[in-house]
């Protein structure tokens, strides 16, 4: 049990946001600063790793300054430093990991490495306490995963994408439709005005596994548009967007629904940038309206990448005794299960 307050400074730089936050007792957000680089990367139609790293190093102490100021705290008030160690872009991760180690060393504070996806899930704990077992659907530009949690710090990946992440497919289809980067919100908006007239493939929908696949869908959309163009036909962008989104949502919602029943979960947490998608939210709300399962979807600022979520996940790892050493490295391919195992091996306090 906590006798005193636990204050964690968290750092997240795994992709194109330089983010820091201060989280109290794992659940209370004291300060949350996100410096987005999206305007810079828009020029290239996607995140350029070298440019992301350059922006992170420009922003790192500025964001630290703002975060401490927002919390009205100094480094002396901080009990531990949590940082995303992976997965993500290696050069981008390195700036956060290096800054975290520098702070931990300079101020002699404990250091905690956090898995980015564990963070996305734990963002929800800033709103609502977990009830186990819980299932989390993580959908973002880099991830599409179904994760089962039977306890804090324990993560079991029961399904994942075999090729593209859902968000990645959104970005590619958006590009084909001539929409700006990142394409998700634009497709979501167009889809509201169209109808599912194309009935694109629902990959792996009837398979028993909880895995996903979106690369075939992406190709089907692109082929349809290409063929129409060759015949000189004009397709409705709204209907393309609606048909594509319908296929993605059908598969995500159906598989998630089956998993909540099979594992008899008490809570379903939807996490990651794509959980901001209105179409997805609506379908989930309909599907789970009469279920015992409690559906939790965070507000937008906690869906997209931020450091508050790293602080929330870091707090649990901290309480479970996990400590990183000064040789902590960026870990671009860190698996959630390997991360979970590391936490479990340490006796809880």
């Amino acid at each position, binding site marked *: 049990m906590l006798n005193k307050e636990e204050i964690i400074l968290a750092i997240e730089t795994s992709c194109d946001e330089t983010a820091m936050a201060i989280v109290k007792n794992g659940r209370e957000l004291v300060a949350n600063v996100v410096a987005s680089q999206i305007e810079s990367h828009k*020029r*290239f139609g996607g995140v*350029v790793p*070298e*440019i992301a*790293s*350059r922006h992170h*190093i*420009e922003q*790192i*102490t*500025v964001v*630290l*300054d703002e975060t401490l100021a927002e919390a009205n705290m100094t*480094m002396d008030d901080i009990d531990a430093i949590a940082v995303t160690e992976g997965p993500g872009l290696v*050069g981008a991760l*390195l*700036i956060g*990991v*290096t*800054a975290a*180690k*520098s*702070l931990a*060393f*300079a*101020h*002699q504070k404990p250091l905690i490495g956090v898995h980015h996806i564990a963070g996305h899930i734990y963002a929800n704990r800033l709103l609502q306490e977990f009830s186990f077992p819980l299932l989390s659907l993580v959908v973002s530009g880099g991830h599409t995963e179904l994760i089962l949690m039977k306890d804090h710090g324990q993560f079991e990946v029961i399904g994942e994408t075999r090729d593209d992440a859902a968000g990645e497919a959104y970005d590619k289809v958006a590009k084909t439709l001539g929409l700006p980067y990142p394409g998700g919100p634009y497709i979501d908006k167009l889809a509201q005005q169209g109808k599912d007239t194309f009935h694109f493939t629902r990959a792996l929908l009837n398979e028993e596994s909880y895995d996903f696949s979106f690369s075939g869908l992406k190709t089907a959309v692109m082929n349809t548009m290409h063929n129409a163009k060759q015949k000189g036909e004009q397709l409705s962008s709204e209907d393309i967007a609606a048909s594509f989104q319908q296929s993605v949502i059908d598969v995500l919602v159906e598989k998630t629904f089956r998993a909540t029943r099979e594992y008899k979960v008490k809570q379903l947490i939807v996490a990651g940038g794509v959980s901001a998608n209105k179409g997805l939210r609506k379908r989930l709300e309909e599907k789970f309206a009469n279920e015992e399962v409690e559906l939790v979807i965070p507000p937008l600022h906690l869906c997209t990448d931020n450091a508050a979520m790293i602080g929330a996940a870091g707090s649990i790892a901290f309480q479970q005794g996990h400590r990183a*050493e*000064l*040789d902590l*490295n*960026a870990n671009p391919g860190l698996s959630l299960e390997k991360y979970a195992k590391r936490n479990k091996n340490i006796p809880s306090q």
Partner: protein
Amino acid sequence: MKVLAMDTSNQVMSVAILNDNQVIGEYTTNVKQNHSVRLMPAIDRVMKDAGIQPNEIEKMAVAVGPGSFTGVRIGVTTAKTMAWSLNIPLVGVSSLELVAYNCILFNGKICSFFDARRGQVYAGLYESNGDHLKVIGEEKNILFEDMLKDLANLNEKVLFVSNDLSLHKETIDQILGDKAVFASNYLSLPKAAVLGLLASNREAAPIHNFVPNYMRLAEAEANWLANNQGKNKNG
């Protein structure tokens, strides 16, 4: 004045702690290993051996590049984060100049360079009077042959100092002949101790916008600029 100095901009990693311009400890390796994993433990070790606590550091010094983009970012991120959070001054020194300083006793022209692939180098030319170095022109990213032809025209001895000398020695010999002099390998490694000494009489830099001197745009940025400038010209 206790100074912590570090260079991770190229293959060599060097960390040093100085007190009142006395070198207390230095740790330098010349191996192809991960700076991210090794830098902080090296700092910890040098500081422990010196009996100095992190909150006793009064100044940070760092080599700002050119060099490996990722490598130099590790040193610069460490130095600027520590400096800002400990509220102490931060001094940046060119990675090329740092190596040239090893040869300060040579009276004349010194060329310090790092290999930058495809015949290119990051290079700086300096003039030493045995006590001070003066940079001649600008440090640049250049086709080494072009630079060497200009140096040959000077018609005076030039000392070359580089940890990448073996990659370019033949070309230097061909173009400069007996005008080229070579520093031995141990002088070619950047030393954080030298960096710490240089920092003692240099001005501190503003910390928030302190960034590496990459000397090269990111490839995507360069392509984007080329395309957009082209469009402007045509339009």
